[in-house]
């Protein structure tokens, strides 16, 4: 068994997360990924603490399984080396979204020299328009795309998504776009489309198509979550020892009544209008969830999350703990799925890492991969 993309060779020129993640997606799928670094190394090597030896933990995670070659593409020698590398690969990923320090490459020459090459450029704001040359970043992309408006309060300091969503979505787009262009070329569909462009800004905006459509011209202005601006941030439901989230779906009236009585919420049952609203749209992301939250939290106040989840589940509600990274890693489901693998730092230190999520039946299981030290493979890559 070979990995799904073991027939592809990819070069990655990147100074930030989006390019590193794109290379990771290809490396996880078995492609041979050559990471081209400046003499001082990819800045992501310094993105810590935490550090594992000389490199940041995040660098080791994102670069396991790649090979590192040093070439300073700001010099004529480095440009020539880049040209030789580009002549030998299927895809060149170039991420200049966060830095203005990767000079524009000579795309036409690179494409002429290798008629099978796909070049995918990752920028801050897209290839057209007045901001096409402006640098961006994970945070700046979350801000300028208004994605950050999904969290926090509008009259207070911004709250970002704690995960690096702009970079991650951009990396998926870069992987998709490169593979689509490669397929188009192979299948004789699109000889002209060997240049692919994606951006942090565009990927964040793409994710929100539902929102643009919902804001356009609905029959009624309420919708998930068109009125959220009027409401405070949603933290789930507080219990004695943590937080939970639950959904009431397909509960019959008898079970509902019994559940409400066991939760000491008989007063709700006595008021038909409140009862109906609370049962149909009074929890989770329901229209009236915020209005009724205090009832639920009063009921859960003396229960642990586990007890409350057991009670809700008994009556047919779907209930879940709100987990942090430690709790989800140790959850039965994640252990059952064997979703955590490991990566190895250049010095040999091992560290757990989340496995690539897609499973391909024809592909070998995930194997531990080693993150390269700076320039570890320069000689072998440039001599060939």
């Amino acid at each position, binding site marked *: 068994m070979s990995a799904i993309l073991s027939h592809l060779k990819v070069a990655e020129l990147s100074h930030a997360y989006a390019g590193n993640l794109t290379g990771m997606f290809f490396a996880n799928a078995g492609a041979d990924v050559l990471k081209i670094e400046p003499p001082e190394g990819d800045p992501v090597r310094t*993105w810590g603490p*935490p550090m594992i030896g000389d490199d940041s933990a995040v660098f080791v995670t994102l670069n396991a399984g790649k090979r590192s070659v040093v070439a300073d593409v700001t010099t004529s020698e480095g440009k020539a080396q880049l040209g030789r590398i580009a002549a030998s690969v299927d895809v060149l990923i170039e991420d200049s979204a966060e830095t203005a320090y990767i000079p524009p490459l000579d795309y036409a020459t690179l494409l002429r020299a290798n008629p099978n090459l796909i070049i995918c450029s990752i920028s801050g704001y897209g290839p057209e328009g007045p901001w096409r040359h402006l640098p*961006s970043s994970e945070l700046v992309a979350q801000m300028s795309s208004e994605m950050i408006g999904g969290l926090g309060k509008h009259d207070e300091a911004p709250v970002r*998504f*704690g995960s690096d969503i702009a970079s991650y979505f951009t990396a998926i787009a870069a992987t998709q776009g490169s593979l689509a262009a*490669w397929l188009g070329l192979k299948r004789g569909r699109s000889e002209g489309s060997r240049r692919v462009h994606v951006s942090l800004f565009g990927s964040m905006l793409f994710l929100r198509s539902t929102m643009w459509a919902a804001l356009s011209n609905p*029959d009624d202005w309420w919708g998930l979550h068109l009125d959220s601006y009027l409401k405070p941030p949603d933290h789930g439901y507080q219990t004695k020892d943590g937080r939970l989230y639950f959904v009431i779906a397909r509960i019959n009236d008898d079970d509902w009544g019994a559940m409400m009585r066991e939760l000491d919420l008989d007063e709700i049952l006595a008021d038909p209008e409140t009862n109906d609203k609370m049962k149909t749209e009074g929890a989770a992301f329901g229209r009236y969830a915020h209005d009724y939250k205090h009832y639920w939290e009063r009921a859960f106040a003396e229960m642990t999350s586990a007890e409350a989840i057991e009670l809700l589940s008994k009556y047919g509600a779907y209930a879940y703990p709100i987990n942090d*990274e430690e709790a989800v890693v140790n959850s039965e489901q994640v252990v059952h799925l064997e979703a955590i693998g490991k990566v190895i730092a250049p010095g040999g230190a091992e560290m757990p890492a*989340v496995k690539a999520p897609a499973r*391909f039946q024809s592909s070998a299981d995930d194997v531990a991969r080693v993150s390269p030290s700076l320039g570890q493979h320069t000689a072998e890559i440039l001599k060939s």
Partner: protein
Amino acid sequence: MTQTRDATPQPIEQGDAAGRRPLEGIRVFDLTVAMVGPWASLQLGLLGAEVIHIEQPNVDPATLGAGVPPLVNGTSIGYIAWNLNKRGLFLDLKSDFDREIAYRLLKNCDVLIQNMRPGVMARLGMDYEKVRDVNPRLIYCSISGWGEDGPMLKLLGADPQAQAFTGFISLNGREGGDPEFSRYYAPLDGLTGTKAAEAVLMALAHREETGEGELIELNMLQASMDLQTTRFSEYFATGKVPPRLGSVASVTAPNEAFRCADGRHLAVSVTNDKHWRAFCSAVQRGDLVDEERFQTNPRRVENRVELSELLADHFASLPAQWWTLRLRKAKVPCGRLMDFNELWYHQQVVANGYIQDLDSEVWGDGLRFSGPPWKLDGTNLPLSPTPLPGEHTAEILDELLNEESES
């Protein structure tokens, strides 16, 4: 909301509009519901694949698209936003007659995508083993909430549940405050669908080389954890749960939003040493460049609280626009929040077609959707309106008969 037609974003021309889209000739059998599945096939459609979206006959339009509100002309906005660039086919897979039609169609399909609850596909006679017998070259992509087995198999698995369970919201919130759900539509449904489209493209690339079909299994739980892989690396390296930090980035500094004299917040990201030197010069704090405690990124991260406080006072002294001008000139990433109206009509959005208006006979004029996240030189990737459920049933069945008589 008022809307002037002149300012309406239009699809951009991307060179030669006659350039063929890369997935033309790829046919997708789209047996998807809610958001995750349709969002995957929509992306293949944008890239030129022919996507046949299946719905049950006599379906109630308000319940399509997971019934996600609001409605437009009585149809869920979810269905309308997630099924662009497809054709609609009615099939009742519980009937033997329609199932036979499905098998005949599948002979000429390249991809099947499904996100039914576990077990449903087998009951419909559409599980991988059965469908592979019909077409061994098929890429079969199966998307679930929590994986193909395990203790959570039967639990409802959709976006908010994934936000709660996978750690995603534990990373959102003020420092020392509570975890926060995303208020916006389904980021993790979007994530998993996008990852599924990526996996299908990988399998198509593999098939191009080997001629082999493929079974892909993907779930929201693992996709959502992979989305957090940078933050999980902090946990795995230290054994400590990564904290919520407001707008602050965890492993680079300074990288946060500062409140300026006019009350607006400006996001500033210094992610390498060149940025740091340019930043200090641009904000006229050259005295900080060579201070030992701020000299390298690890030192700045270690002394982040001190650095933040010092810079917070500095940024509060002048308005956001002043800082923006100086930081842009120095090529340091910075930006502020734009509201919806600014965003929709911003030159950068219009120029790249990132948000587009799409008129439709069915859903009305001026509905707004995201344009494709990719630009391909020389090839246009236009949006086409969502079909009515089953709208192309007769046309698709006619084509099937023609194809069968030719082969």
